[in-house]
């Protein structure tokens, strides 16, 4: 339980709100990414990097991380308040999410002093961009089968193989890498090791892949006899699977520790409803149409259930029935409901639903169309919804594999 007084929290909230209001950047005049998975140009990158640096310098990022590594060592409640205010003021995202949200907490919780000292501050400042090398062309959901080879050679490991869907692979300085050190291991999981690997070395070649939106954001990343120092190994050889699973816990929001900041542009159902004020159906306001009203109410309830679920997860006696079902299902619930909401937003636009970014008549510049296409990043990335359902069925309900 947080020991921070309500008064302190309110005062802090006011302070952050004032800062956000004063420092929220003006519209840069080019399309900004709606999430960290859509950083496709240097222009976008520079803008976002500057913003993250500013937020961190102001003291609103990594607040609960240790002081000596660029944080402030304060109660996590302050970071949640800062995040809420960022959301409320609809400021840009803190784009270095794989560092801030996954690699960072991992290093904080499991890393050595040397690793913490070396990596954490650069994650917060935005100087060191991180990417994640888990998925491979032939092994996605079946991550335990990853085949990229890391062969020990003296003080180095030699990497050969291919990773894919590497978000920000072309901008990153470091990669959290899952690689196979022992192809002969009896269990496929035991042959895996985990690396904090540099990207800017010879033999690493990230090639951008165009996404369904037409934009860029991830790469196919080729490793050809790429040599990295043996000290990049995290933990010990053979512990890769365990560490990767821990990383996914942060990624799916099932475990705390993230530095904070927004990973996604706030897209609230209120914005959708407000945007529909002038839309008509059958010659009358769409918001008066009984069928549409019912769909909106169902959508509002879905979103509200997510928020209430988060509240209830913090109340012990109300979580004894299916322990951990709320945190473990959070990703599935949230991402699926987001996807449905954004599709509904297109549906409700009438003929304008058929327009896209670039058409001058597109409603809000095609914002919802782009947002809907992008929503699949969260229902596929980080473990697909179907795989999430398997995990919940097996771990919470105890159903067989």
């Amino acid at each position, binding site marked *: 339980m947080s020991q921070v007084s309500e008064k302190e929290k309110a005062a802090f909230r006011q302070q952050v709100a004032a800062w956000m209001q004063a420092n929220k950047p003006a519209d840069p005049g080019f399309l900004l990414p709606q999430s960290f998975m859509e950083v496709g140009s240097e222009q976008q990158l520079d803008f976002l990097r500057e913003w993250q640096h500013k937020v961190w310098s102001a003291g609103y990022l990594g607040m609960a991380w240790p002081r000596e590594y660029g944080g402030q060592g304060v109660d996590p409640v302050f970071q949640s308040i800062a995040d809420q205010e960022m959301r409320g003021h609809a400021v840009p995202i803190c784009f270095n999410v794989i560092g801030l949200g996954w690699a960072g907490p991992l290093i904080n919780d499991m890393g050595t002093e040397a690793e913490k000292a070396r990596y954490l501050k650069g994650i917060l400042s935005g100087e060191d961009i991180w990417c994640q090398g888990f998925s491979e062309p032939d092994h996605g959901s079946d991550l335990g089968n990853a085949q990229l080879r890391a062969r020990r050679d003296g003080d180095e490991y030699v990497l050969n193989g291919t990773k894919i869907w590497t978000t920000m692979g072309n901008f990153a300085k470091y990669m959290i890498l899952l690689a196979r050190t022992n192809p002969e291991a009896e269990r496929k999981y035991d042959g895996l090791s985990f690396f904090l690997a540099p990207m800017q070395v010879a033999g690493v070649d990230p090639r951008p892949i165009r996404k369904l939106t037409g934009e860029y954001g991830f790469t196919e990343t080729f490793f050809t006899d790429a040599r990295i120092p043996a000290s990049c190994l995290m933990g010990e050889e053979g512990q890769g699977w365990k560490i990767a699973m821990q990383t996914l816990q942060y990624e799916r929001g099932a475990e705390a520790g993230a530095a904070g900041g927004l990973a996604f542009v706030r897209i609230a159902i209120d914005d959708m409803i407000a945007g529909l004020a002038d839309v008509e159906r059958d010659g009358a306001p769409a918001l008066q149409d009984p069928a549409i009203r019912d769909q909106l109410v169902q959508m509002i309830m879905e979103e509200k259930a997510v928020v209430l679920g988060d509240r*209830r997860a913090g109340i012990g006696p109300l979580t004894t029935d*299916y322990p951990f079902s709320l945190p473990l299902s959070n990703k599935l619930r949230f991402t699926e409901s987001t996807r449905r909401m954004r599709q509904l937003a297109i549906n409700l636009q009438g003929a304008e639903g058929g327009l896209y970014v670039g058409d001058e008549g597109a409603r809000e510049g095609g914002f919802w169309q782009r947002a809907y296409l992008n929503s699949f990043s969260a229902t596929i990335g980080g473990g697909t919804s179907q795989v999430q359902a398997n995990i919940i069925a097996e771990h919470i309900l105890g*159903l067989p594999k």
Partner: protein
Amino acid sequence: MSVIGNTALRFSEDQAMIMDVARAFCADRSPMASVRALLESDAGFDPAVWQEMVDMGWPGMTLPEALGGAGLGVAAAVPVFEAMGRSLLGGPLMASLLAGQLLLRAQTGDADDNALLAIAAGVPATIALLDSADWGAERIRCELQDGVLRGVKQQVMEAAAAEWFVVVAQEHNAPVLAVVPATAVARAVRRDHVLIDATRRAQSIDFTGIQVSEEAVLRGPAVTSALHDVRLLGALLLAAEAGGSAASCLDTTVDYLKTRKQFGKLIGSYQALKHPCVDILMAVDSTRSFVYHAATLLGEDALDTDAEIACRMAKAQATETLKYAGDRAVQFHGGMGFTWECDAQLYLRRAQWVQQAFGDAPHHRKRLAHLLLDR
């Protein structure tokens, strides 16, 4: 203000204690064998178990101490109904509690407290509310004229057990409540319903010709507001009960999926069965969140708009959840699911009764649309 609105959710130590006691009690007194034994009984509940509930003070839990109650508020009763739903335990508790709330909220000044005192002491009571199959009907058809009732009431919950009826009627186009003792309602004017949920009992009652003394009539604006509130409280308590039932329904299905084999594998390993179970789990989780959120917003006074929104969401969610859980429970038990012997039918049947009572999901969503979108 966001349309998501109020998201308060708290659970008091009192509630937690009541939940523990209620769960243990319901599990012990209402094992499946007892539930089944009661299905074909006249009363539909075991008087000895009801007496124990009375002894624990449940009927008066939400009534003021001055009337012999525990003064805990309706929020304290929510975990009790969830626990009863879990164990499919029936009886006159919900009917009595709602009748008590209706009288309490409608009363002004020095009205006659007899019925309330009786309810707090554990004498069963019920509300005669429905004139037709339409939960959304504005007009009350049952009339009170010169102290005499005229009209037929449908689906009066636990009417056979009730010793007091709170009859919702209209007098000069204004709603009134007539408090009628069971002795005034002859057997001949009562017809036993056959309910799809055989764990419950209800009657249709023709009140025509029954005389009501002046002290036994409640009038005025408080009646209108009390009726509004009690319809919402009924929806909430049923949502709590349905949430409990949906959870045990899910457990029943999951247990079967862990034991039944086909094609050499446990059927629970098939994703066509597994994934819907996860959907049900998430719906059960949502139901609980809505139910306890609504409980958090119930004050002692008339329900405010946030509480109304919360009660309606709870009922809309719970109804759909139990319907889905019951439906899949039957399907996932295969031929066994089609039998009387399989417990899946109990949940499926209950779901059909619960979905309509105090308004179905579209009924509440239609009102939610107004509350959320027309501001």
